[in-house]
């Protein structure tokens, strides 16, 4: 059904609705300097505290340079946070009334949802790029500069995936009461159980199972692999898992967004 709608609204005239929603997200991001700077605090802290704090232990265990291992994980941490909250921003639009303006527009909801989601994913990808540069500042060096582009394909897929998750949550939620719940039971576990901070080898099996079902794991592996040549899986596995999960979540997101009644 969704495909039929995409096909129906494939015309340029209707895509401009998606475009204007994308533009809005990017403009608002670009304008809120405090948000850009504020959201860099956490990745910075993680890079410093973990990167230098655990660096020597990691090296003694003969695993090599910890910062090199950690940086891709921290890039994706900021992508995860930014993307999820971009999706959840729908709640703010509900709150401040702006959502209604888009809900009564003569445009299929899926275009609205796609524009928003792409906008959120773009913002999260930019945020990831900034953290990437920050990591370079602390001494992180990609093995092969030409692979950076491929790494950011993974980053963008992860951004798209988690913006969709945010959209799904926000479509079902009416207020920010459940916000802390999401933070503690979704965002933090997703981050910690993704191989972002530690290698996957030698973990208890139950943790391993969790990690294998976490899409962020494959994003971390994809980015780490392309930047440092160390894959836990394979680039193809990473890409396939991310692509499939992203598609499913995008469809779910548009389904739930379609159902919003204000």
């Amino acid at each position: 059904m969704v495909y039929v709608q995409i096909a129906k609204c494939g015309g340029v005239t209707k895509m401009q609705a998606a475009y204007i929603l994308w533009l809005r997200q990017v403009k608002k991001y670009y304008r809120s300097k405090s948000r850009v700077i504020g959201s860099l605090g956490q990745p910075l802290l993680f890079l410093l505290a973990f990167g230098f704090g655990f660096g020597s232990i990691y090296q003694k265990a003969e695993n090599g340079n910890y910062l090199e291992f950690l940086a891709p994980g921290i890039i994706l941490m900021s992508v995860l946070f930014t993307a999820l909250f971009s999706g959840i921003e729908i709640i703010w639009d509900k709150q401040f009334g702006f959502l209604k303006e888009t809900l009564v527009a003569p445009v299929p909801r899926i275009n609205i949802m796609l524009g928003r989601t792409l906008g959120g994913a773009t913002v999260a990808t930019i945020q990831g790029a900034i953290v990437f540069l920050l990591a370079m500042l602390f001494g992180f060096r990609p093995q092969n500069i030409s692979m950076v582009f491929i790494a950011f394909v993974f980053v963008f897929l992860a951004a798209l995936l988690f913006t969709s998750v945010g959209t799904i949550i926000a479509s079902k939620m009416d207020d920010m009461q459940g916000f802390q719940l999401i933070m503690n039971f979704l965002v933090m576990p997703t981050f910690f159980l993704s191989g972002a901070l530690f290698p996957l080898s030698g973990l208890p099996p139950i943790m391993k199972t969790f990690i294998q079902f976490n899409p962020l794991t494959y994003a971390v592996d994809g980015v780490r692999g392309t930047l440092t040549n160390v894959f836990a899986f394979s680039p193809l596995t990473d890409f396939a898992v991310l692509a499939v999960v992203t598609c499913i979540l995008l469809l779910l997101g548009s389904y739930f967004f379609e159902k919003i009644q204000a």
Partner: protein
Amino acid sequence: MDNIIVVKDLVKKFKEVTAVNGISFEVPRGEVFAFLGPNGAGKSTTIKMLTTILDKTSGHITLNGFDPEKNREDVRKSFGIVFQDHSLDDDLTAYENMEFHAALYNVTTANNVRQHRIEEMMKFVELWDRKDSMVKTFSGGMKRRLEIARGLLHHPKILFLDEPTLGLDPQTRNHVWEYLKEINKNENMTIFFTTHYMEEAEKIADKISVIDHGDIIATGTAEDLKKQTSTETLEDAFLALTGKNIRENEATGLDGLRSDSKMWRRH
């Protein structure tokens, strides 16, 4: 004369609560129609069903010849709306808010038609000199005027206004209605509005319907209603029709949201 809105036996139930209880009415094209009722009477719910935001439980609606549930996009193109609550993006400029709307409603960009239309409407509500200001710097009255300009941007056949003058000073209220009357006359645009200001309904509306507990209890001109209830003013007629008890509104999730919003506002 053809009717731009036809509603027949319209019902909306939220779980056990019946918000709208089988109402029927017509609004002729070009008319200014006022929908009056105490808080929680079903006014906003009816507007939401007419404007495709809510799906009805049963009954029939035709708006500009279309069914809001079957021909959503045709219906959405037919009307403009000024919501009860604020619905602008505070973090965009006034012009950007207008541009956003024009893109959503596909106002053509050929020959600068879009730019001219935005300029025309912003001049009409006297906000053109503030076009590059962020909406968050606007007063309540300015925001309202911008919302009206936005609602008119795509030449709607019918304009819905849900308490458009709530919280505005008399000067701004007067201003707002002057604009609207002008458009109503010049473009034969139908106006459907709700209000708690009785003198407004009396002065502006061609026809008034009074709704209470989800039922329409009276319809006619202000004069008709006064005659029907043998009262002097529309306010007295309204009280005679709907009683003098104060209505307790049940708080919804959204109300909680609004009280939180002050805390969360990021600027």
